[in-house]
């Protein structure tokens, strides 16, 4: 069995970035025809770097790549595609205003640069491809109007249209809802049945366990080992990935919630396109309580948070903090009143990536007296002290306080946001998708920290698309569907099936 020649082999790949970072320290992987190989590792382990090298986006410092026994070296993604290797990135590379058909045929529209594009012919070919895979995407709608799950299928179709037989998927489930993940896995199984080879990059144990045939685990730029999925357990993989046993459960002592800190009454909020995104929500969050909101993304969660944090207009209803009406208050006023906000999109709303760690560490507090000198100048010595304290307390791995935030890994960026928000000494914390795209160790840290805040009698509002996270952390949880709560339940008094029904729009 091991005598088979791999369809693809990457041998002793080393990658050292110009700034001296050693991303890969001699990685060898083998992929056999028709299998799904899992590439498991934490954020920053080097999985994506390795695949970018394979896909011709990065040049390896050292190492060789063999495709069907022959040595190859790809100069560009187009080169890799021409050799039958396709990649679907974590961040899609779609032209947003183009429809699916235009996105897919781009670059191979047919003969003649200045002749009319044969749309009907392309449509026929695509329809056949979709029929084979047993799914449909709308071909004539601009892709920006489509859900991420559909956009991902368009990316997959784009690669298949180019006849690739090795498909790399980089964290394909990171942006998907649980239902979309199931659908994606069905597609992957279909592809495998057609004889395609798939490399599945992930840091999620259960997904790797479910879909792959073999798993290669990478840690800190080195291969830890390769195991057959049928012979592996999540515990084993977790140990290989992190290098120690991971506490997959969060310690959460029982606690009686205190007085009501935050209250929303009959809240109505409009979405970007004028639709009713939040439709008459009423709920409260008490001191010493984590109130979770679960649900498939795009059901009004983002609009709800934006309304609460003063970033979006409230159409109707009231929001109270400690009995004071805060409806329509500005974000700055809310901060001063003790609200902290861990936003759902850290790179766009949470941090300014080009700015340094210490500058980011005081965003939203930069006007406070503690950081200023006479004449309103910023007291940088104080700021540095503050950042160093955060780095130490939250175990943030950063090259220094003056390093740009973009040089930090996703998990450490997120920890910096949590640290900053918590340092504002809030009474009420809104945590939106707090561990999205964050490695296991940081996830564990952040989740435990939210519980710690709860234990310190703070009120926490947790909004997450990660159902496990909501179940694990919440004292009470609501399931949101089309702008309404399908029910408010206690996590330990509800079955997965009941939650699944509520996520699908059936009231409890």
């Amino acid at each position, binding site marked *: 069995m091991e005598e088979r020649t791999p369809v693809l082999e990457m041998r002793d790949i080393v990658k050292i970035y110009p700034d001296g970072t050693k991303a890969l320290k001699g990685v060898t992987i083998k992929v056999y025809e028709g299998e799904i190989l899992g590439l498991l590792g934490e954020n920053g382990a080097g999985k994506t770097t390795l695949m970018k090298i394979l896909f011709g*986006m990065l040049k390896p410092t050292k190492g060789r790549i063999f495709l069907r026994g022959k040595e190859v070296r790809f100069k*560009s*993604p*187009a*080169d890799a*595609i*021409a050799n039958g290797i396709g990649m679907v990135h974590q961040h899609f*590379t*779609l*032209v*947003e*205003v*183009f429809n699916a058909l*235009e*996105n897919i*045929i*781009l*670059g*191979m*529209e*047919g003969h*003649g*640069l*200045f*002749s*009319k*594009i044969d749309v009907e012919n392309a449509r026929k070919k695509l329809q056949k491809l979709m029929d084979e895979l047993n799914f449909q995407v709308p071909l004539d709608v601009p892709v920006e109007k489509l859900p991420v799950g559909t956009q991902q299928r368009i990316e997959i179709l*784009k690669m298949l249209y180019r006849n690739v037989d090795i498909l790399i998927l980089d964290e394909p489930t990171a942006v998907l809802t649980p239902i979309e993940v199931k659908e994606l896995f069905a597609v992957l199984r279909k592809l495998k049945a057609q004889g395609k080879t798939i490399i599945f990059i992930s840091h999620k144990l259960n997904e790797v366990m479910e879909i792959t045939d073999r798993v290669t685990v990478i840690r800190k730029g080195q291969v830890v080992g390769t195991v057959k999925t049928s012979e592996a357990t999540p515990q084993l993989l977790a140990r290989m990935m992190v290098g120690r046993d991971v506490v997959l459960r969060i310690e959460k002592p029982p606690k009686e919630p205190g007085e009501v800190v935050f209250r929303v009454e009959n809240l109505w909020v409009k979405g970007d396109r004028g639709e009713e995104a939040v439709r008459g929500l009423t709920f409260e969050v008490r001191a010493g309580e984590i109130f979770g909101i679960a649900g498939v993304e795009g059901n009004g969660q983002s609009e709800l948070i934006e309304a609460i944090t003063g970033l979006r207009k409230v159409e109707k209803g009231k929001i109270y903090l400690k009995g004071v009406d805060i409806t329509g208050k500005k974000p700055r006023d809310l901060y001063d009143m003790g609200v902290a906000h861990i936003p759902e999109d850290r790179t766009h709303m949470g941090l300014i990536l080009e700015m340094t760690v210490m500058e980011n560490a005081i965003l939203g507090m930069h006007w406070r007296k503690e950081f200023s000198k006479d004449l309103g100048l910023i007291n940088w010595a104080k700021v540095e002290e503050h950042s160093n304290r955060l780095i130490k307390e939250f175990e943030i791995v950063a090259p220094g306080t003056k390093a740009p935030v973009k040089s930090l890994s996703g998990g450490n960026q997120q920890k910096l946001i949590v640290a900053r928000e918590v340092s504002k000494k809030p009474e009420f914390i809104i945590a939106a998708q707090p561990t999205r795209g964050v490695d296991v160790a940081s996830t564990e840290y952040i989740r435990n920290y939210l519980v710690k805040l709860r234990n310190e009698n703070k009120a926490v509002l947790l909004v997450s698309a990660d159902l496990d996270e909501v179940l694990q952390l919440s004292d009470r949880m609501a399931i949101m569907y089309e702008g309404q709560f399908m029910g408010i339940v206690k996590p330990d008094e509800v079955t997965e099936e009941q939650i699944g029904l509520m996520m699908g729009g059936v009231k409890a």
Partner: protein
Amino acid sequence: MNETFVISLLLGSLAAMVPIALTSIGAVISERAGVVNIGYEGILMLSAFFGAIFAELANNGWVGLLGGALTGLVIGMIHGVITVYLKGDHVIPGIGINLIGYGGVAFGILAYWGTAGQHQVAPSAQIKPLWMDAFGNSLSPMVPITIAIAFIAWWMLFKTPFGLRIRAVGENPEAADALGINVELYRFTAVLIASALAGVAGAYLSVDWLGTVTKTIAAGRGFIALANMVFSGWNPIIALGGAFLFGFFDNFAIYIQNNPWLAGTIPWQFIATLPYVVTLVVVAGIIGRARPPKWDGRPYKRE
């Protein structure tokens, strides 16, 4: 209003439409590919000047237009190399081109023809009109050519692989790059097409429509063309309509100024702003807010 007046107004509008339409269409193509150029005013100036020289040397107006296109191409190459290949800023080179345009032409007229500020292009070196009446109203062959160019540009942008790729590199060059499209080549080509069209527009001013080279011959048309491009929603055919509208009110304003009764009532300065105001209001009102190409004005560098 008699028949002669209507004909005169219509022909005058079409004549004034040509330079703005050609420049706008070019700008649409360039920005669809993601390259901003605010130097069209300068290209109009320089190509009006060099176009006239070419025309007089060959004693042929068409050679003048070709000379204008070549002038535009050379300037476009400079802009393209800076913005597309050297990943430079898209606005700064345009400022330079405009400054060179105004300074260079004012100096050039004096240096080449020895007259200050103005040179009358020899009638034999001008483009012959397709049609002309006894009152001096005429129709230039450039009018139908410009209309054709607008439709060809639209068809090219929205129906052909070339256009799809142009739009792709302006919207998401990374996606295009990953599919083997040479982003730099398509962007550079688009810049060249744009500046060549502006070059033809400039030469049209001197060897056809106005028949003269002056030190302010472009008269802001390069900037009007840019505004027209934005309000057209980056669509060549709507840009053609916007250019006609501008031409119409440009002529209408001249008519009002020449009408003693009206000119006495309304200050001429106010009337002179009419074409600018009306074009912006109408075109902006019809199109509303359009979204520019996502990577418009941003250099693309592979990571």
